[in-house]
């Protein structure tokens, strides 16, 4: 991942700004930056501000207001645990706790080895399969939805994705 980052923030941002550069594209610009890095690096935000003339405070306002944006680098895989009504009633809170325990996350959202993150998410619209969790990769290329997850399944998923992540990271992706 670091190698991507070294592909100069300037370069990435100017590519994106080549496509969108209006004030009302801000949300889209940030989405594109995030899909590049998995989060919004500070330098990128500063660069956007310089190039578009949108005040940095406005950019950060948007970046912190919407749930989709991350300001810190997440793990390779990100567990998005649905916290909608149906999922709440069917015990996704317990699943969330189990995930954190299994992955040994005490503080913040990311495991200490930086492989996997666990985040709470809003409804995916799959309430009929509650409880639901989505696993996405940092680059946004992979996306898996898991429905009707119970505690056993949660534990299994946690371990599976962790080993997948460590394999990918080791192979230098």
């Amino acid at each position: 991942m670091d190698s991507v980052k070294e592909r100069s923030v300037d370069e990435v941002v100017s590519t994106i700004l080549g496509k969108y550069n209006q004030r009302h594209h801000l949300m889209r610009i940030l989405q594109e930056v995030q899909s590049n890095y998995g989060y919004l690096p500070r330098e990128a935000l500063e660069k956007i501000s310089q190039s578009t003339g949108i005040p940095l405070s406005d950019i950060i306002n948007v970046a912190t207001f919407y749930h989709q944006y991350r300001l810190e680098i997440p793990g390779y895989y990100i567990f998005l645990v649905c916290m909608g009504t149906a999922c709440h009633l069917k015990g996704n809170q317990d699943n969330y706790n189990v995930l954190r325990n299994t992955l040994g996350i005490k503080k913040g959202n990311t495991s200490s080895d930086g492989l996997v993150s666990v985040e709470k998410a809003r409804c995916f619209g799959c309430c009929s399969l509650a409880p639901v969790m989505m696993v996405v990769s940092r680059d946004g290329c992979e996306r898996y939805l898991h429905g009707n997850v119970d505690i056993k399944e949660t534990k299994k998923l946690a371990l599976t994705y962790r080993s997948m992540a460590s394999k990918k990271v080791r192979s230098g992706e």
Partner: protein
Amino acid sequence: MAEWTLMDRCCDKCWHTVEYPCKHFIRCTVEGPLCHESAECRVKRKRRIEELKYGKYGIKIKVPISSCTLAAGAKEVYDAVSKEVLSSGLNADITISGCMGLCYLDPWIELSKKGLPTAIYVNVKPGDVPKILKEYLSGDLSNAFALRADPEGIYKNYKVPLLNDLTLWSNQVRFVSRGCGVLNPESIEDYIISNGFRGLDKILNMHPKNVIEFVKKSGLRGRGGAGFPTWMKWEIAQSQVSDIKYFIVNADEGDPGAFMNRLLAESDPYRVIEGMIIGAYAVGASKGYIFVRAEKPLMADRLSKAVEEIRKYGLLGRNILGSGFSFDIEVILSAGAFVCGEETALISAIEGRTRPRQRPPYPATRGLWDKPTVINNVETVAHVATVFQVGVEEFTKYGTEKSKGTKMFCVTGCVSRTGAYEVPIGMSLSKLVYDLAGGPPDGKKVKAVQIGGPSGGCVPSNLLNTPVDYESLQSAGAIMGSGGVVVIDEDSCMVDVAKFFTSFTLAESCGKCFTCRVGMKLLYDILKNITEGKGSEEDLELLNELSDVIIGSSLCALGGTAPNPIKSTLRYFRDEYVAHIKDRKCPAKVCPNLVEYWIDPAKCVGCGLCVKACPTNFITGERGKPHSIDPSKCIRCSQCFITCPQGAVIKR
């Protein structure tokens, strides 16, 4: 070279191009050719339609690919099907379809073969695929769940019910969701042969005022929640004088528990876009936005693809079908904030800002970039398209005096048949919960039904005969909202439910106006105290009063409705609150601080798993002998309860 499709020219005589469009293009694709007489061209089109319906080789396998089926493993099933077809050398078309709303059956596949009834197989596992295929093709339909259609009338031989005969289907009126689970959401041809774009075809010859008049006659009300008459909104926007007007479709479905918009847009995106074009024509908008939630990527994907496809054939863009009306659509990905479901916040989001603003001025007069803007819900515009396709009479046949037509409801929570059901407005809640969704599993009792998401309220079980329409629900303390129905059974604590919704709205409050930002926090703190056994009786009065203030004086609809769950649970489940406060007990044994964990020595086998799970090491006991928890030191993390394989840890 790509395959010839219905959308392409049949021969050189067809002069339809995007630049010089033909007025009759839509009808021509199916009924055509209209501008010239050619048996060859006619046959060509007929054959193509046949192919689309039954597959090139007479066998068609449909696998639904939508978010919910994917979560249940449809991708694996799809792969298994392709593998099986490839390896067995079968000549069959594999197509995708949308979700038909019966999510508890996911993943399902639909098989059709000329001469055989179309059969639906449910809860399919990838490993079952070869067997299912073999059985079906050999004519053995006994393991099918239901038959979609049986044109030949031979289903009786198979003892498999017809889908239409199942209560969960016969009680529905599939009006707007008629294409869901039937059509291929990525094929414009599929849509066009199922009467698609006929509404658009019709209205381009009508005066915009007449279009609005038509909608007025249908009595359609907004399906987003508030139930504002659609025609009225359109008329206001239409009467504004402005160089540019906007038409926005709100697909930022943030209500936890509601997913009909996702379902519609994923399974039948063209219908949504057709309705949108009709609306834009009626109000004179020249630019449209579809605002889609980022958490629902497939929905955004399907909508963008559909927009591109439609634009490619000249149904969108400049001078649509030679009518002189120009309109284009951009799909915008929301970055996910519940408040964006509110009109003005949605507009802010599109403008690249945050937070709602005070209304009036309403968006219909001053909206996006201060221009007249109409914002409609996905389901509303899909209804518009359908109404224009099939006519007003078909629509007004259903519903009540004040609210016409049908509405989709997503029934989730503690019911055995979770899913989305489209029913006539005015059907009773109990019918929806029991007859359609099958009631709670394991014979449990329904305690309450939560309708309308975080802005709605709870209807207790004794009021389940309330008809679902805007007015009746309101008087019962709930709202129709977008139509999420969450069934709550005895195992849930209503105070906890209220706390959940409050924590949701608290987290989603944009923080702009005071009453919502601070008021919700105060409400949450009070509820938290109550669930921790620190409440006092004055708190209940305070909850009520504070709720009234927040409802009465908040800036946007989020704050104006956020205390509803508290108000309605207080109204119907006051005794549960009192139990938390007075007896310091949670009757449903949900609130951790009011629950004691205890190991039943009769059940405990002494495996020691709980000892490992306990983060505080206060579970003791020799291996092989019953363990015990030190209640004074237990932190009630519930880890032992979750871990115990014997079910020996008991909450009391």
